[in-house]
């Protein structure tokens, strides 16, 4: 007797018990006024019995496997016992049905509890992230000192196969990764910041409704393009373009460069910056604008001297969110920035980032006892907290700003 058969039987039983409950309450309804409509009585029997019997089965299996392995009964017995549990529960509920029985309230309580359980999933996910990242990262830090990791300037995670090989131990100094990450995020923000902000200003203050209706969806398209597509774009268009224009000026640029990755990431983030700035600018009260225009200021003067100062906290919050987005972005950098951990501020060289290294360390064979694999989780931990802090700060700034004008 396998599990599917048991489940199907229980569901069939639930359906018939629903019908029984419905019948009884309908017959009561003929003479007296019921507190709850008949369907609730039927549903209550079905749901209660189903929940109790399923709980019974899962408890049984838990005990069987973990507590008393020797005390394992045949599957048939579990089947009959679960049916018995079902029928007893159904009978108890059935006997309780009378005109004042508040079946509806009980069914609704079950619904609310179900909804509550669903909403705790978000907490479980966060716990899952923390558990997986912290657990493996701790193992990593027991092999490699945390100070070496955070402040070391040399990153070469390959563990040599032979003991006597040159550079015999892997180096896990993550500083080049952090600088690479920030260099690329910085380039991206140089592109996305002004373009995104100016587009938002133009869209909310100058553009006619018609233009807005055309351009808004277009920027939404830009936002909806998968990052892997941007990565491909970086590889086949932007990187060769940068390389050849570099040659024109007599510069030798690597085919994978921080500049190419940063540029394309900037393009990716433009719609993000512009939509946040748009919200923020629209939140500036109309009377502030009117006040400025009313004393004869031009539109641009109003924007520069009144709107932007008023919206500044919101804009800064938005830019921080964009930076956090850039730091966490993986595909563009993995395709366009390269793997070599150079400690450099030169955008024309190849650099690597935290996300790229996580990927590089984990794609392919993984050994969960080698610092090489575990290092990825340590990087993940850093990345998680870096973005968490950025977001927390940014959201707080934005929220304070919104409250100011509400």
């Amino acid at each position, binding site marked *: 007797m396998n599990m599917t058969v048991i489940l199907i039987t229980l569901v069939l039983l639930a359906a018939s018990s629903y019908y029984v409950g419905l019948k009884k309450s309908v017959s009561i*309804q003929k003479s007296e006024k*019921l*507190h*709850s*409509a*008949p*369907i609730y009585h039927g549903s209550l029997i079905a749901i209660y019995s189903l929940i109790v019997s399923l709980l019974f089965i899962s408890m049984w299996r838990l005990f069987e496997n973990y507590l008393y392995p020797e005390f394992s009964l045949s599957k048939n017995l579990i089947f009959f016992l679960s049916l018995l549990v079902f029928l007893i529960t159904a009978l108890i509920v059935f006997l309780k049905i009378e005109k004042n029985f*508040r079946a*509806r*309230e009980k069914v609704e309580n079950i619904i609310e509890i179900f909804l509550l359980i669903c909403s705790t999933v978000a907490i479980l996910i966060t716990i899952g992230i923390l558990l997986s990242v912290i657990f493996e990262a701790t193992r990593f830090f027991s092999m490699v000192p945390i100070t070496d990791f955070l402040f070391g300037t040399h990153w070469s995670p390959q563990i040599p196969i032979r003991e006597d090989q040159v550079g015999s131990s892997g180096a896990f100094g993550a500083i080049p990764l952090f600088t690479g990450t920030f260099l690329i995020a910085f380039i991206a923000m140089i592109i996305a910041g002004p373009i995104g902000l100016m587009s938002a200003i133009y869209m909310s203050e100058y553009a006619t409704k018609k233009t807005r209706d055309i351009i808004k969806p277009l920027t939404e398209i830009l936002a909806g393009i998968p990052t892997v597509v941007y990565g491909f774009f970086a590889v086949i268009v932007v990187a060769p373009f940068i390389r050849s224009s570099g040659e024109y000026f007599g510069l030798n640029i690597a085919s994978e460069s921080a500049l190419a990755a940063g540029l394309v990431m900037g393009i990716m983030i433009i719609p993000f910056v512009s939509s946040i700035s748009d919200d923020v600018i629209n939140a500036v009260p109309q009377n502030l604008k009117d006040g400025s225009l009313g004393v004869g200021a031009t539109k641009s003067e109003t924007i520069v001297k009144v709107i932007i100062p008023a919206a500044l906290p919101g804009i800064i919050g938005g830019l921080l969110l964009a930076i956090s987005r850039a730091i966490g972005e993986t595909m563009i950098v993995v395709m366009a920035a390269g793997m070599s951990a150079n400690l450099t501020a030169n955008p024309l060289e190849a650099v690597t980032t935290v996300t790229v290294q996580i990927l590089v360390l984990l794609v392919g064979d993984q050994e969960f006892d080698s610092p090489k694999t575990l290092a990825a989780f340590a990087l993940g931990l850093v990345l998680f907290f870096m973005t968490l802090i950025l977001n927390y700060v940014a959201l707080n700034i934005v929220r304070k700003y919104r409250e100011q004008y509400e």
Partner: protein
Amino acid sequence: MFDNEELLKETKSQALNSETVGNIHVDDPRIIAKNINVFYGDKPAINNASIDIGKNEVLAMIGPSGCGKSTFLRCLNRMNDTIDTCRVEGELFLDNENILDKKTDVVSLRAKVGMVFQKPNPFPKSIYDNVAYGPKIHGMAKNKIELDEIVFKSLDKAGLFEEVKDRLDAPGTSISGGQQQRLCIARTIAVSPEVILMDEPCSALDPIATAKIEELIYDLKKNFTIVIVTHAMQQAARVSQRTAYFHLGNLVEVGPTSKIFTTPQHKLTESYITGRFG
């Protein structure tokens, strides 16, 4: 003549300890409210109001905006439960049961005490489904024929049936504002409540639609107890038998409508009736 400011000062001094003027009791009460206090957070909204509401009477509640008349109305079917910060104290008896008791099932209470709102709020469903919804959730009809009967009767009682009988499938939002409000009344009647609460039911309507609703209220009186909150004194005078005057959270005066509008006993009532503030 009174100076308005002076009047306001007087009002404030009276607000703290005021006895309701007039007779709050009736011979055959349907609802008995005793010492009702309502707070929004820490702010008191109603001070110690007590009043009986008689069977098959129309009780009008009038007063300047923010006087607590709507808040009081919403106590009668515990609609205030939907406002998180709102706290109600006191006793409210309907059929010898204190409906403010935590144990009271608000759902069956609201089936007994229906409500019509300020702005017509038909559901975005067909006219038929709007009226059928209440009977359906309360399991009042055993089959389609019975349900049809309830719906048609309710529409008829609300004086709407003739106007919409050919388009019962049309969305409830497609008819005029006055018709929408009568649809909401029909929807309320369909659950066969004992009391109907009306919260400024005509404030969003034009005079002709208003007249129709007033006529309807007059008819409904035969079968229901009606409590109506209104901003228009003329309306109160036209439709009600008794009137309660609220001022800044106080139930100032209660009495037969004819008496309130001709010979009010309380100074505040008189000032309001004569239009010194509103």
